[in-house]
């Protein structure tokens, strides 16, 4: 019995509802695809949002990753769940949806955005070792250097302290 079936390891790339051509281009580049391939990933699925740059589809029979892409889906939860690695723009929704599913995450900050407050969140979570942070240019380097087992799981947050404060302020009794 040969080892015919390689385990499918999908890298899911998402830009949310934004246009982030720089990330799609970077992920589509040979250096990034090579870095991912060397780490054992087999499939690359790109959710490209409102971007105009189209990646190159591939069946993966040229010895590299299989590449596919789409623009939007009503929920990326399923794609996140079936991914082995997620590369995402720095939107808080995408970040926390991924972290709550316990998936390894590389966040790429869009340097073209005016007033880039998104980088604060990505950097803080990277400092706390919940994810890796990269730019479109350094992505291949981050992939090569990353050690996913060193990432710390993210404990989901809790809105009850806020609810308590609001209730107390308004004079509602504590539960």
């Amino acid at each position, binding site marked *: 019995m040969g080892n015919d079936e390689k385990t499918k390891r999908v890298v899911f790339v998402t830009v949310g509802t934004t246009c982030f051509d720089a990330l799609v281009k970077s992920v589509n580049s040979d250096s990034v695809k090579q870095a991912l391939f060397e780490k054992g990933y087999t499939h690359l699925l790109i959710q490209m949002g409102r971007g105009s740059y189209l990646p190159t589809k591939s069946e993966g029979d040229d010895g590299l990753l299989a590449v596919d892409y789409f623009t939007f889906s009503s929920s990326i939860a399923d794609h996140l769940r079936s991914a082995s690695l997620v590369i995402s723009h720095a*939107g808080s929704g995408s970040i926390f949806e991924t972290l709550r599913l316990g998936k390894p995450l590389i966040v790429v900050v869009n340097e073209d955005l005016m007033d880039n407050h998104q980088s604060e969140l990505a950097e803080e979570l990277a400092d706390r070792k919940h994810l890796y942070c990269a730019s479109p240019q350094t992505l291949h380097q981050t992939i090569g250097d990353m050690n996913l087992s060193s990432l710390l799981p993210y404990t989901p947050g809790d809105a009850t302290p806020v609810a308590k404060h609001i209730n107390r302020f*308004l*004079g509602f009794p504590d539960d």
Partner: protein
Amino acid sequence: MAEILKMFVALIEILKLPVIDKSNGNNFSSVSSVAVFSSAIFVVTLILIRLLYVIYCNSRPLSKRASKPVSTLIILGSGGHTAEMLNLLAVLQKDRFEPRFYIAAATDNMSLQKAQLLENSLIAENATRVPNTAQFMKIYRSREVGQSYITSVWTTLIAIVHALWLMIKIRPEVILCNGPGTCIPLCAIAFIFKVLGIRWSSIFYVESIARVRRLSLSGLLLYKLRMADQLYVQWPQLQHQYPRAIYVGRLM
């Protein structure tokens, strides 16, 4: 306060001069214009005193124990904002915060849908209770992401008029918002309603989880102008920078 009184006294001094200098024939019009002017100053001073009183009361918990549900306005923003707000709504006791009014920006298609899903799931849960009274409304946006600040002045004015219309209809007792520019005209009007005695609303602002080191523009305005009763931040760095903010940990 001292400055206000000094201004008031100085203005009265200025107003006295024309009455003394002018001839008899001009006295009547001078007196009536002085009367109008003094009344205006008087009203402005009253409003300023009321304004200071409101700011003083703001951030102090309401003194009366809440005995009945409070009408609640929930301001939704795009994407991450809505997700955080829905997280908060999930842990709030729905029977205390009703009727609920949801407002989202006109160009935001997803947020009201998500809120409707939440409300529908509540109806499904509580089939025996009175029908859900939640209302969903759209508001013109003060400023689109990336819009130039100059054209934003005009669009903000339109947003303010629309906000005024909505607020007069709703007059909520509680406002929950978490960041989008949509909340500024609404909160400003709520604050004015407070000062004018039209409706006392408690404004709760939760700064987005994406704001780690700096407040957003909305947060900064509400904090500096003391318009929010309570401003919550999700990262400790912000609490150090803005001492009147309340650190509540992460919501997501």
